[in-house]
């Protein structure tokens, strides 16, 4: 039991971490709550399905193409939908919700509303600590971990990474220091779309996909970024694993736990907010109070 919780929590946590980091990145840099982000995740899963099952490409190529397509789409969304209305916070929120509904309906029209199974990329199972783990779970975990590692290097070791973190810290000062804030925003939008795409791609072979699959993760992402502190990347990473484990523990330990897993994650969120309103690692922004 304990081991199942450990393994499931780890795999879920890694995928949540990918999703939450991408979301935090855009919120931190551009102060935009982009709901369409969850739609990109759903589209990536369908793109992988299309390329693997219908076109018949090998798995690595399919994933790479799917992520690239999602990045292009994510940038287009940023330029065409978000930027023109970004002065109006609520308009951004609603535009991105509406856009996600557009994605959902387009996928529904193209693929139908039924659940679609994806083939696994690698077959076989191993036993770790007495828990049966499919090789696919291991592979998904490794891909997520590699992506997280690369992102960490990018953010800490490159000029772009420093610019992104500086812009997230203080937009005006970053601008005064000669950083092209708008370009940094575009880069973080692209990065975040890539993370959403990758998360969608590694989730696809683990579960069944359907046009409404964005709703569950969306709620979890929001809980994670709030628990971790909006815009804090380190906080999002830790909170992703926290929520991943709590969810796994609820499902395995409580009767009727699969109904309650969302509720428990969100109760944690409310509890954290009560004790520490800016999240575990959040900084209270002066002007936003």
């Amino acid at each position, binding site marked *: 039991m304990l081991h199942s919780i450990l393994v499931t929590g780890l795999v879920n946590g890694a995928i949540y971490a990918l999703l939450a980091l991408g979301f935090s990145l855009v*919120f931190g840099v551009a102060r935009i*709550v982009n709901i369409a982000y969850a739609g990109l995740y759903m589209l990536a899963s369908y793109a992988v399905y299309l390329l693997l099952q219908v076109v018949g490409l090998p798995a690595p190529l399919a994933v790479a193409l799917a992520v690239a397509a999602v990045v292009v789409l994510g940038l287009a969304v940023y330029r065409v*939908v978000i930027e*023109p*209305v970004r*002065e*109006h*916070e*609520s*308009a951004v*929120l*609603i*535009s991105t*919700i*509406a*856009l996600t*509904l*557009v994605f*959902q*309906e*387009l996928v529904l*029209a193209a693929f139908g509303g039924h659940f679609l199974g994806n083939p696994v990329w690698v077959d076989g199972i191993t036993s770790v600590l007495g828990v049966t783990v499919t090789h696919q779970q291991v592979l998904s975990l490794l891909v997520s971990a590699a992506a997280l590692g690369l992102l960490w290097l990018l953010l800490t070791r490159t000029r772009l990474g420093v610019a992104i973190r500086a812009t997230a810290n203080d937009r005006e000062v970053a601008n005064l220091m000669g950083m092209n804030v708008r370009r940094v925003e575009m880069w973080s939008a692209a990065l975040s779309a890539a993370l959403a795409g990758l998360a969608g791609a590694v989730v696809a072979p683990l579960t069944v996909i359907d046009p409404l699959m964005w*709703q569950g993760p969306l*709620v979890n992402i*929001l*809980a994670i*970024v*709030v628990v971790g502190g*909006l815009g804090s990347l380190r906080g999002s990473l830790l909170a992703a694993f926290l929520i991943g484990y709590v969810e796994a523990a609820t499902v395995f330990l409580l009767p*009727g736990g699969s*109904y*309650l*897993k*969302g*509720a*428990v994650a*969100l*109760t944690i*969120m*409310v509890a954290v*907010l*009560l004790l520490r*309103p*800016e*999240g575990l690692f959040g900084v209270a922004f002066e002007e*936003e*109070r």
Partner: protein
Amino acid sequence: MIARRLRRAGRFLRGEVLVLPSRVLVLLFCVGLLALPLFTRDPYVLRVVILSSLYAIFAASWDLVSGYSGQVSLGQALYFGAGAYGSALLHHHLGWSPALTIPAGALLATGVGAVAGIPCLRLRGSYLSLATLAFPLILTGALFALPELSGGELGLSGLQPLVRSRLGFYYVAVIVMLVAVFTMWLIGDSNTGLLLHAIREDEVAARASGIDTPRYRLLAFALAGLFGGVAGGLYAHFVRVAGPSTLEVALSFQAVIWGVFGGVATIYGPVVGVFLLYPLTELLALVPWLGEHRLLIFALVVLLVLRFMPQGVVHWARDRMERECLRCKSRSVATRRACRVCGADLR
């Protein structure tokens, strides 16, 4: 006596209502809704208007907390669901009549609103929005975990309707809607509304001016709960089911979409949003090919409208029909050259 009252009413109508196109539209809207059954008694049309009225109360209650006090709620379905489930549970388990359970459910939703508002007092901006998103989902989880009480995923069905005939329910819904929306508009226009505006614009400054801001923020939540609960209770006793769909994220998002589409911090904006968008989606459902894609069309309409009028339809339309006097801030028809109140040049 009566003649004098009538004359005064007539003067008010001519002097205050007929001079502004927006007020004429409000009058036409109220009269049109009340007179509609004279022209058609088609149950489908009545159903669409009834649901639009209930959703209008719901969307306006969202505006009261989100537009006025600036606490953008993404979990407005909490109040709708609390009202629906509250009255359904009392009706189902205790056998109370709907006329009692709907007010009781609304009171319950008021309490729920206040309780949900307490943790939100510590939060601002995006954090607050995301926290409110959580509450209906937590309640849904709790209801699913108690299937004997709540009926689980199917909800409580077979509830007794409030009024047996559809026409009767039509009048109940429309009149409750008009009264509730007018009350909310009065609250928004009162001192309390002004304080809520102040809290939205700058809470620290409001507190520095001696306003007990937590009290007013909580009041906004409780009022949103009250009106959302009325809408939810009426809804449960109209469709005769109280199910988890009354707590869905999608319903909360609908409230936000209606509100922002119509125009926030106006109360009548969300009502306009509902009465434009809800019948539109229902109309689309009747057309064979479009019906399958109505959610897509709905989303595209919302996207396009926001792209070109990010302030919402109401503000956009009002700015085209009327002009505000620079000197006395009262509004006049856009065709006038001089302000109707103080005579200042409008050009």
